[in-house]
């Protein structure tokens, strides 16, 4: 664990939903890598494919969704195409998932301890003492008194349920924990304390995190790198601080300008007009152009690639080769 090296390499990953009215591509040609101990944030609006991407990485997709192309290499093994038996050796031991709603993810008729026991017994033959000791240990790690091993999910508060889900994900100290909006059901105070705790655990145990959220401000202080998704594609990928300080894509800029601030002068905000496209009927050219304040004629015709700008990747024609100016209005932008 001394040197940073990749534990996850996703390349060219596409996921289709196979429907009667034709296939819908929810994740389109997504590539990224994740280093050991790194915290990657993925943000985007509902329907942008971020949860589908997570499910594809964890190989939890169920029909009608299927991986159409690409690979997910986890510690050198391509997970796409592995059988369930092969996957179950990896799942939870090396890679675990924390779902959005702990109330639905935990079994309501089993105590927390019994659920921990199930997970441990699925990977080996630990003795009862080992199970007890490890379960108590992980609960203590997330700041819950081990007496709650005997509690049922409904006896815990929302924050405690989410924390016990995280404890469960850490039973085997995996190398990667995937989190799908684990804080979205909590109020700001509980949200903040859970984020701080995840970060502390990550720093002490060195696991990597993929954290999906629609709330960009939430991870601004916690993630190392940030990936912004729009309509199934990566729009921007870069170091978190860089993305916040100097967002390159008009969509990212719009997202950042959509947050009212609690400090400083009150400024009128606009948000992003319109709504995300229907993935079955994508606009021509750049997928963001109908909502983009900077769009020009060419954006409606040419689909942009990901261009590298100062170690960040951005999918915007303005960053392609400098043939388009970076500001609006210099070249007769589309009037709307």
């Amino acid at each position, binding site marked *: 664990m001394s040197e940073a090296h990749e534990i996850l390499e996703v390349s060219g990953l596409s996921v289709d939903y196979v429907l009667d009215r034709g296939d819908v591509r929810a994740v389109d040609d997504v590539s990224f890598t994740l280093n050991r101990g790194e915290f990657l944030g993925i943000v985007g*609006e*509902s329907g942008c494919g971020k949860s589908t991407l997570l499910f594809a990485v964890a190989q939890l997709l169920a029909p009608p969704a299927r991986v159409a192309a690409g690979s997910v290499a986890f510690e050198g093994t391509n997970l796409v195409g592995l059988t369930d038996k092969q996957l179950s050796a990896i799942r939870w031991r090396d890679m675990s998932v924390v779902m959005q709603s702990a109330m639905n993810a935990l079994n309501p008729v089993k105590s927390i301890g019994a659920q921990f026991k199930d997970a441990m017994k699925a990977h080996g033959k630990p003795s009862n003492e080992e199970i007890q000791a490890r379960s108590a240990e992980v609960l203590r790690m997330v*700041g819950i008194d081990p007496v709650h091993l005997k509690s049922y999910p409904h006896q815990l*508060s*929302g*924050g*405690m349920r989410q924390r016990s889900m995280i404890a469960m994900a850490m039973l085997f100290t995996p190398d990667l924990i995937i989190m799908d909006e684990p804080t979205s059901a909590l*109020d*700001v*105070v*509980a*949200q*903040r*304390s859970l984020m*701080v*705790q995840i*970060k502390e655990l990550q720093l002490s145990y060195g696991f990597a995190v993929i954290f999906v959220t*629609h*709330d*960009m*401000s*939430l991870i*601004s*202080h*916690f993630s190392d790198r940030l990936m912004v998704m729009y309509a199934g594609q990566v729009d921007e990928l870069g170091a978190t*601080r860089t993305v*916040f300080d100097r967002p390159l894509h008009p969509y990212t800029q*719009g*997202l*950042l300008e*959509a*947050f*009212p*601030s*609690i*400090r*400083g002068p*009150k400024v*009128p*905000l*606009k*948000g*992003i*007009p319109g*709504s*995300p496209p229907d993935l079955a009927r994508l606009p021509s050219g750049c997928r963001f152009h109908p909502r983009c304040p900077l769009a020009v004629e060419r954006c409606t015709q040419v689909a942009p690639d990901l261009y590298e700008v100062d170690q960040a990747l951005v999918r915007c024609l303005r960053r392609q080769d400098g043939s388009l100016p970076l500001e609006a209005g210099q070249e007769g932008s589309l009037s709307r």
Partner: protein
Amino acid sequence: MSELLRAEHLTRHFKIGGALSRRTLHAVDDVNFSIGDREIVALAGESGSGKSTIARLLARIYSPTSGEMYFQGQPVSALRSRSDRLRYSGLVPMVFQDPFGSMNPVFRVQHGVLRSLKLHRPELSGQQRQDEAARVFDVVGLGADMLERFPFELSGGQRQRVGFAQALAMRPKLILADEPVSMLDVSIRIGLLNLMVELRDTMGVSVLYITHDIASARYVADRLIVMYAGQIAETGPIEDVLASPRHPYTQLLVSAVPDPRAPLSVAAETDRGEPPKVIDPSPGCRFRWRCPLAIDTCAQVTPALAELEPHHQTACHVAQAQPEGAEPVQAFS
């Protein structure tokens, strides 16, 4: 600013457990506040603090255990006849949190608007109702073609606009908006918040904006009420309260707001307190278990709101004991 609605000693308890149980949940306890004409009041607090119960009391979905609400000077409990009650619910409509659950999926979206027009403004003819529906849709920024759509054809933001259109059709004085944007994507929240401000400015509607998002409250509201465990912890003009929060809970709330513009830092002190017990609470401050500043008095006497700064009231023994003009104590920063 004249007063539109006033709540006095508003209290709502719920009996919980079986028939023989004597336990009561104090959802709202002895709450006093008022809402002025053309005013957006934000009601903030964590889940379970009683903010939705207040909205439901104001909407007459629940009746108060004790206390009274006065609307335009008239006691709300005195509204007995069907016509009086209809008039009140037309003047004080509610917009719900979940834009997916609050619309009937088998009817076109105009259905709700037309029905409430028929119920609340029976003097209109069928054509006038259609025209009025088109007008309110236009006010909330939806095209007239939207009237014919079904809910599944609309995005979350559009559905919430339909919710506001439905409320507006009744020519309301006060809209009770219970977390209207919390289920929407960040990029479209601002549009709804701007709409609330616009309704206040152009149509003179007051809004009770219920939220746990302090930053969005600051963006739209004139005044802030912070609830904790069924009681008001702090209230005042929103800029004053957020600039110098005096109650430790407000300080915690303000410090927990993620601010991407702030420099990178992970706060050292974090609160891991659990929600307060509101079932058969004993006297004393309900925040004392989480409060780093709690003193002996806090465990014995329930603090009452006191005006520590102009129009800015705080229910905290420690803040109230401070000499005037002293720098406010910070429990969380």
